[in-house]
Every structure is written in structure tokens, then in C-alpha cells.
């Protein structure tokens, strides 16, 4: 019989077992025993955030940029409810998070005790699974299982709710490695990739004269090797490739085979290729409604192959002709191997077959759908992102964003060459994500350049995390494209609501330079295009947190854009197209 240890200590033992080095958290009555225990575990560093939502997004940034699960620790009641937005965000974007929450002592559960809330009830729909620990003897097993569930299959957030009395109680600590419950068959990441299926894929690829790869966040989640394999697949086939918002970086953004991002604000060539293709190979993406638009008119003439680790993602929005349930990396490895073994000459023998297709694509490319009218007087937001890219691309830069126009401009104009360098809230679209996410990224990569491309409205939602950055000397750069508007809202009001700019202008914005100084970091402001380069360089060279107030044209709209209700081949390319294009029908559909 070993030494008896407390629940609080068990929590740390399991964290140590899973090699957790950082937890993002905020203390409170119901987690005090865990905080008391912190001092005895030197390999685990606690990062004190300023709001539990920040802890969640920081854990997400940490996880997304490192491939490891992010861990957060919050107290009961308001601590747990504040975490809900971040958990939902992680659920939508498949980010592995383990959230530990305190709960009132077991005997008070159900009595409306101080800071009691039904945490497992509230978080049930926004976690892969959650547990309320009622018996100290279950704690180690549940904590261990929590990591297993968060990181296997399609990753996602989990929550372990631990009543305060359980944190104090003592028991033997046993963590049976062999005891890995199979999670009722759900932990395994792989369906079977049969050679039959691989040959079907290859046969469809050979028959196709207008093929396209449509890749998503699943490639990133599968690990860096999957991105390497994707690059190999493109070089083996010579096919064009487009990516979702979440998949950016899996394939080099400046490679000629890459058509840019697709979807509502994707490029003209990517969306037209999606519409006109005769074979679509979806690798780790989920036919999200911002991608498909109206499903009945989505890519009407193509055969569709879908590879996804989550069976429920296949056939949910779009019917496909061939479904393969698999981890993306394992699939790519098997497919490449098969091509190299059996179809050595694929690239050359198929070149002629798709040469006309590439000509079509080049024609679409000529439209230069990401171009914009630059100005000498005001900074165009697209120009600011372009300059930021040019001046930071030689460093291994990590970019996070908030949500809005700036997010789309970042996705369009910042070119990513590696996976895990791009952290954005796609599924939930959470304003306030980028700043705390940058905190988490910088924790995981202390020596790298980490930039949050932000909007002035979004960043105010979690601005308090600047204080966290200052406390831990995290030199994150908050690059605000300050258009003084909730620009994305303003754009829709302009196009769809007769320019009734109802509540989308933020009066009384703070002076961001002074705000930076108040937090104890550096503020920089740029208002003219010709001062931009110098100031961006200044920002990059400061080894401290910086808030950069980049004053941009307040009336710029984000193009290209698929006005909803339109199929992918009818995009708005710029203001000239605006006038007659959005029909009444279209208005209902954006």
C-alpha cells in the first residue's frame, strides 16, 4: 500500500504523466486546494490570465501552434461559465483542450450553493465529453481518460468538474497504463484504408480532366507530417489545390499549384474551380456553409471524395460518391505509396489530361481577385497586411486573428508556408479570440514572432489579457487594423441593409497608444502609407508586447465575396460589381 495523496495532487500527477508544461487559469474558492498544490510541481507553470475566456483561447493558441493539448483551470460558477465561449470555440474548430473546473463540495451540489452552477450540464453540448467526479477513487482514471478523449479521433475540448471535497480527499494513486478503456471503440483514429479504396481514388483521379483538392483543418490536426505528405501528393499528381480558412499553411501559400482560400471571401480561381471541377477530393474539411453556399448548386458536376476522421462529417451537408473514414495523415501516406508503386508515371501521363483545366484556372487567375486600389493618402487594410507579410515572412512568424474583415484580409494576403502558424476562430467566429490565443502561442514558442492581426472592436473584448502578456514578458504584437467600425457588420449593412449603419460604429474608442502604455507595454501608431514599413519594422524589433494602432481606410470592403444565394461562379470582385448583383433573393441568404 502506497502513500495516500490528495485529489489536488492527483490532478498534478496526471498532468505530469501527460507531460503538461503550462496551464492557463484563474483561481477561486472551489479550486484553492489545486492552487495550493501548484508549488510542489515545478515542471508545470501556471499562466494567470485576466478572464477565463482568455485562459481558454490561450490554451487553444497553445494547442493549435504546438500540436499538444491545451490545459485550463477555472473555478466553479462564474469561472466555468466564463470558459464556455472558449470551449465552444475549441469544439467547433476541433482543438484539444482539457478544462479542469472546481465545483462546490459534493454535499452542497444541487442546493444552489455559493458559486454553484451545473457545469457539466452547461458544457455538455460544447465538449466531446465531460465528467463530474463524485468519488476520489475515480479521479486519476477520469483525468487520464480526459486527455485520451481530447486528443484522439477528431480532437476537441473536454471538461473535468472536481468538487472541492474531492480535491482534499486522499487515496492511493494508481494510473494503470493497461487500463486504457477503449472508449467504446471511439479512441482509435483509423478506419480501414483498403487498397480497394485507394485504387478507386486513383481511378477517379485518372479519369478526371478537371480535378481539385479541397483541404481543411484536418490536415493540420493530423500533424506536420500530413502537411508534408500533402505536398508530396500535389507533386505526384500536378493537381490544383485550394484550402479552407482552417487549413491554411498545410500547403505553401505562394506555390503555383495553390489557388488560395475558397469560400465566401475566397479567391475567384478557387471558387470557380470548385464550381466547375469534375472531381473534388475533400481532405479533412467539412463542407461548411461558408464554403458551400447554397448546397443545391454546390459544384453541380463533380464526383466527390471525402476523407475525414469523423464519420458524422461525411454526408452531413453534401452527398459524396466515395467516403473514407480515416486520419488524414495515414490516408495520404497510403495513397502516395500506392501512386508511387503502381502509377509511377501518373504526373506525366496525366499532364495532357488536365492541361486545359490549368488554362481555365489561369484565366480565372488573370482576374486578380485579391487586388485592390491602393492609396497614397490612407492606409488600405490589405496593403497593411501585405507589408506585414513582406516584413515578417523571413522569420518563422505565427499569426492569430480576431473576427471580421481584418481576419479575411489576413487570410487572403498573408501567405503561410508551414502548418500550425495560423490560429483563427473559424467555426464559432469569436471576436476576442486573437489576443489571448497569441498569449498561448507565445508561451508555446517563446522565441518566435507572434502577431495578432486584430480589429479594434474585437480586440477590446479580451484586451485585459495584455496584462498577462506583460506579466510573463510575452512579446506578442497586436496589429490592429483600426477602421473604427465593426467593419464586417458595416459591410453587410452597406450591401444588404441600405447603408443603415445601425450600431456598427464604435464611438469613444480608446487611444490605443496610451492604452499600451497603461498596460506597461509599447504603443505605436501609423496613419500614412509611407510610414508603415518603418513602423512595422520598429514593432518587430521590440522585444516587448506591442499594440500597433494601424489607422486604415474606414470604408474599405472585403472582396471578393460570394453574395449568398449565388453559386460559386458568380462572385462580387469589387465595388464596381456591387450595384445590381445582390438580388432581393440574395439578401436573404448571406
Amino acid at each position, binding site marked *: 500500500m502506497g502513500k495516500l495523496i490528495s485529489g489536488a495532487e492527483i490532478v498534478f500527477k496526471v498532468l505530469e504523466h501527460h507531460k503538461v508544461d503550462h496551464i492557463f487559469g484563474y483561481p477561486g474558492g472551489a479550486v484553492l486546494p489545486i492552487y495550493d498544490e501548484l508549488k510542489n510541481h515545478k515542471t508545470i507553470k501556471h499562466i494567470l490570465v485576466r478572464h477565463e475566456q482568455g485562459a481558454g483561447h490561450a490554451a487553444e493558441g497553445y494547442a493549435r501552434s504546438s500540436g499538444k493539448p491545451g490545459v485550463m483551470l477555472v473555478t466553479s460558477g462564474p469561472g466555468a461559465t466564463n470558459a464556455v465561449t472558449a470551449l465552444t470555440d475549441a469544439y467547433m474548430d476541433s482543438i484539444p483542450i482539457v478544462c479542469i473546473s472546481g465545483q462546490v463540495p459534493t454535499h452542497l451540489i444541487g442546493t444552489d450553493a455559493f458559486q454553484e452552477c451545473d457545469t*457539466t450540464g452547461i458544457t455538455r453540448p460544447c465538449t466531446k465529453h465531460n465528467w463530474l467526479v463524485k468519488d476520489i477513487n475515480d479521479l486519476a482514471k477520469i483525468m487520464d481518460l480526459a486527455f485520451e478523449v481530447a486528443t484522439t479521433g477528431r480532437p476537441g475540448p473536454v471538461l473535468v468538474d472536481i468538487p472541492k471535497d474531492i480535491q482534499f480527499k486522499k487515496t492511493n494513486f494508481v494510473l494503470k497504463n493497461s487500463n486504457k478503456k477503449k472508449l467504446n471503440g*471511439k479512441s482509435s483514429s483509423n478506419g480501414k484504408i483498403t487498397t480497394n479504396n485507394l485504387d478507386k481514388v486513383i481511378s477517379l483521379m485518372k479519369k478526371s480532366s478537371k480535378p481539385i483538392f479541397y483541404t481543411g483543418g484536418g490536415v493540420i490536426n493530423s500533424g506536420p507530417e500530413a502537411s508534408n505528405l500533402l505536398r508530396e501528393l500535389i507533386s505526384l499528381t500536378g493537381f490544383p489545390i485550394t484550402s479552407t480558412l482552417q487549413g491554411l499553411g498545410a500547403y505553401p501559400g505562394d506555390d503555383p499549384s495553390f489557388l488560395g482560400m475558397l469560400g465566401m471571401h475566397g479567391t475567384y480561381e478557387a471558387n470557380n474551380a470548385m464550381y466547375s471541377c469534375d472531381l473534388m477530393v475533400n481532405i479533412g474539411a467539412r463542407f461548411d456553409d461558408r464554403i458551400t453556399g*447554397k448546397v443545391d448548386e454546390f459544384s453541380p458536376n463533380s464526383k466527390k471524395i471525402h476523407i475525414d476522421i469523423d*464519420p458524422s462529417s461525411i454526408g*452531413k451537408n453534401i452527398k459524396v460518391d466515395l467516403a473514407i473514414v480515416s486520419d488524414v495523415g495515414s490516408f495520404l501516406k497510403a495513397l502516395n505509396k500506392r501512386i508511387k508503386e503502381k502509377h509511377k508515371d501518373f504526373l506525366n501521363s496525366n499532364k495532357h489530361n488536365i492541361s486545359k483545366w490549368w488554362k481555365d484556372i489561369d484565366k480565372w487567375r488573370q482576374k486578380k481577385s485579391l487586388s485592390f486600389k491602393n492609396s497614397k493618402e490612407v492606409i488600405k487594410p490589405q496593403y497593411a497586411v501585405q507589408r506585414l507579410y513582406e516584413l515578417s515572412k523571413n522569420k518563422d512568424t505565427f499569426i492569430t486573428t480576431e473576427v471580421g474583415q481584418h481576419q479575411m484580409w489576413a487570410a487572403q494576403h498573408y501567405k503561410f508556408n508551414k502548418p500550425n502558424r495560423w490560429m483563427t476562430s473559424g467555426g464559432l467566429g469569436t471576436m476576442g479570440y486573437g489576443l489571448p490565443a497569441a498569449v498561448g502561442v507565445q508561451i508555446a514558442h517563446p522565441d518566435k514572432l507572434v502577431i495578432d492581426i486584430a480589429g479594434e472592436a474585437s480586440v477590446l473584448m479580451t484586451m485585459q489579457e495584455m496584462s498577462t502578456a506583460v506579466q510573463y514578458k510575452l512579446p506578442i504584437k497586436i496589429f490592429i487594423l483600426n477602421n473604427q467600425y465593426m467593419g464586417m457588420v458595416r459591410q453587410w449593412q452597406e450591401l444588404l441593409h441600405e447603408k443603415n449603419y445601425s450600431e456598427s460604429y464604435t464611438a469613444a474608442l480608446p487611444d490605443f497608444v496610451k492604452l499600451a502604455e497603461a498596460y506597461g507595454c509599447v504603443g505605436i501608431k501609423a496613419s500614412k502609407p509611407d510610414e508603415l514599413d518603418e513602423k512595422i519594422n520598429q514593432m518587430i524589433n521590440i522585444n516587448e508586447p506591442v499594440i500597433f494602432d494601424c489607422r486604415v481606410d474606414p470604408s474599405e470592403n472585403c472582396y471578393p465575396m460570394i453574395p*449568398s444565394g449565388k453559386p460559386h461562379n458568380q462572385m462580387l470582385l469589387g465595388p464596381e460589381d456591387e450595384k445590381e448583383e445582390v438580388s432581393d433573393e440574395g439578401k436573404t441568404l*448571406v
Partner: protein
Amino acid sequence: MTKSKSAYSEPGKLGKSEHHIIVVWVDNEAGVLARVVGLFSGRGYNIESLAVAEVDKKKHISRITIVTSGTPSVIEQIKLQLKKLIPVHKVADFKRNDPNILFKELALFKVVSSKKNREKAQKLCKKYNAFVLDKSKNSFVIQVTALRRDIDKLIEILSPLGLVSTSRTGAVAMTRGSETFK
């Protein structure tokens, strides 16, 4: 003409809605029913009836039988989403009109009325495995097991005969023959 200006695309063409019986084997642990039911309400699926009880005392497995309706793609999603829940072991799905499946509901009726009407009522219940469970000088409680639509019909015809209270379970289902669902 101003139409609504929602942020989402129009619904596409819908398939035809069908009735299905979904049987789910789950670990009988705290909150498991809430997970299953929450999945249905959260994703807008329909529950017509639900029956649940532990069927394996040793392994603590409960069997949940849900009658639902939806288009084929919704039914497919229901199954796939259920299978993702951690405590779910397996999910079976039968069409309601599948001749290979037995399918029963139990109902209790309390009838308070004259002797004549009570006799009439009792006769009407007869072909549905009726048992009288309780009798008083002006009432009885009767148990029947039948298909949902038969019970619906019984309620209708018993009402004028003094039906004052109805209690009924959700449907339970089982395949015919020697096979079981793996």
C-alpha cells in the same frame, strides 16, 4: 419587396420524412440520458417516444429505444452523432414498418363510468392483451400492450366511455428470430 435578411443560405431540397426506431446501448452512468436527449434537442431532431432501462446489471448497460422521424440524411446523422458519444456502445436503426421487428407500447387506462360503459370499454381493450389491474364500484384500471396507433385509437374510443387518466410508455423494440443486433 423586402425579404428577411438572414445570414445563412436557404434550405435545400428536403428528402421524405420516415419513422424510425433507434435503439442505443449505453453505459448506465450519470448524465447519459441527458447526453442522448440533449443531442436530439440540440440538433433539432425529433423524439416521438423514448424508453430506457438498464438491461445488463453486471456491465451496467442500459438500452434506450427512441422513436423518431426524419429524412434519410437526418436519420443517418442521428446514428453517426449518437455513435460519437463516449458512453454509447452501439446503435441500431429500424424502419417502423420493418416486418422483422417487434414493437410494443404499454398503456394504463383509468375508466370511471357506469357499469354499462365500463363493460363496453373493457371489451374494446380485450384484443390488446388487456389485464384489469384494479377495480372499484365505479372504476377500473386496465393495462394494454399494443402498437402506438392502436393505443391512440383506444384513447379516442374510450374517452366517451369515461376514460379519465392515461399513462403510457414509449415503444420498446426487438428483432424477430434468433438473431440479435451486434
